[in-house]
């Protein structure tokens, strides 16, 4: 059930060339002992497109992300991320944002966000210089020197996302980024993340159990079944109107996609 990039509605006209493909999964499966986490996954993700993966908890969504990231090797099938097949090479091309923010309590917000630069050998002063503009751009100005313990959950996730961004990888893997937030903060964060991702084009794989979140933040929604995780449906999200969150989520086009996704989840 491969979806060609040309049909993903991201604006790559014509047929798929390899340079337009960021991630390609071919017949990927993975088991842990007797438990099959994911099975027969075929998925092609166009460069700089945003894919939402929804599915029931324990359905192998996180496993799928870890396979793409090169943190896990599949038992069968092949994975390529921007042409890279080997796990180490995939790891070098992906940045992971975990569900819990996992900010380091001994670093302030700025130094947490810049850690990927420091890991690459950039000096701390230089990492700060490069990270600071993003704080201003994404509504975190004046919070640079605040320790994580003093930030609210939403602000921590913003820092966490900037940290992922600062890894300067082309592929971002977001693993239920707002799963631990209350619903009001989550709504704000979805809006924030949506506009942040509009500003910095990356290939984004977003895993969530929240169908609305997947539709709001991605152009393509992949519905996974319960364990063993298989792709049961791929839905395109086309031309959602702008406006407030209420206007978007009550729009017939949105509701239609949501209904199809929920139906696929029930099947």
């Amino acid at each position, binding site marked *: 059930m491969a979806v060609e990039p040309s049909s993903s509605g991201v604006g790559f006209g014509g047929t798929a060339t390899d340079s337009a493909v960021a991630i390609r999964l071919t017949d990927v499966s993975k088991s842990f002992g007797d438990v099959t986490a994911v099975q027969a996954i075929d998925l092609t993700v166009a460069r700089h497109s945003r894919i939402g993966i929804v599915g029931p908890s324990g359905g192998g969504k996180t496993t799928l992300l870890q396979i793409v990231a090169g943190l896990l090797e599949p038992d069968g099938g092949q994975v390529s991320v921007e042409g890279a097949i080997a796990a180490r090479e995939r790891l070098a091309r992906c940045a*992971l*944002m975990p569900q*819990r923010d996992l900010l380091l309590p001994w670093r302030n917000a700025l130094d947490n966000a810049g850690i990927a630069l420091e890991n690459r050998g950039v000096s701390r002063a230089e990492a700060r210089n490069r990270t600071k503009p993003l704080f201003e751009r994404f509504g975190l100005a004046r919070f640079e020197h605040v320790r994580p313990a003093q930030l609210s959950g939403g602000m921590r996730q913003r820092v966490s996302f900037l940290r992922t961004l600062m890894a300067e990888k082309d592929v971002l893997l977001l693993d239920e980024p707002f799963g631990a937030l209350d619903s009001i903060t989550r709504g704000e964060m979805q809006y924030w993340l949506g506009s942040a991702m509009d500003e910095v084009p990356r290939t984004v794989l977003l895993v969530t159990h929240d169908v609305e979140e997947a539709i709001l933040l991605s152009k393509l929604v992949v519905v996974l079944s319960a364990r063993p995780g298989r792709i049961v449906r791929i839905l395109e999200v086309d031309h959602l109107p702008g406006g407030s969150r209420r206007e978007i989520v009550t729009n017939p086009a949105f509701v239609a996609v949501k209904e199809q996704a929920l139906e696929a989840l029930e099947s």
Partner: protein
Amino acid sequence: MTRATHEAPVRGQAAEPAGKSRPARSRALVWSYGPASAITLGAIGLWELILRVAHVPEYLIPTPSEVAADFKSDWPVLEPNMFVTLREIALGFAISVIAGVGLAVLLHLSSTLRRAVYPLLIASQTIPIIVLAPILVILFGYGIKPKLIIVALICFFPIVVNGIDGLRSVDEDLIRMMLTLNGTRWSIFRRVEFPAALPAIFSGMRIAATFAAIGAVFGEWSGSNQGLGYIMLAATPNLLTARIFAAIVLLTVVALGLFGLVSLLERVLVPWAPRGGKTR
């Protein structure tokens, strides 16, 4: 601190001791140390009272006031010997911290080394280090060396064990995330594992600080001609019981001082660590 309009981004400001007003600080001090001080003073008073009423002679058990008097008359003897023991404790402790943290890091970084050395490390702790003291005296003589070795051997174990646990306590998800953020083995160790282990290392150091005095005294008992342990030993046949008690008090003060120093160092180096209570 400014706030964004739509959300309260900053939680209640963490109570920084430096930011407290003076009365608040002194109230906190009373709250922290008041109960323990009250119990200590009460016990001393009771001790004095019982011995006076029962007419216990000084050479059996001296009263607190007799110990205090002894401090005055014996200070020229006590002072130099206190510094001898202090030096043994401080140097031995320093050696144990360097060796303990170093070994914890090595065992953490190499699983082969850990499998080879860790069981031996545990087994070595079943040997009562105290019985090694006479052997060390035979090997190294009456000088400071055997004392340093005994203090270091006693202090070393809690530091290693806590250090290894601390280094291992890091969340697997955090390591995975760091791997995708250009993290190498070394950068993950340096930026995540080691800082994360610091609170545990300091716990080990605090335990070790209380053991250090025991080590120094045993070292001196096995063979020495100076130090507070030696003073106690020499005072016993002469029934100078008040002097023994004075030496014990000084030893306690030295051990508490070391403990306080470690706690202070922790506050400075690990200001982010969650703290259960204000007292240490």
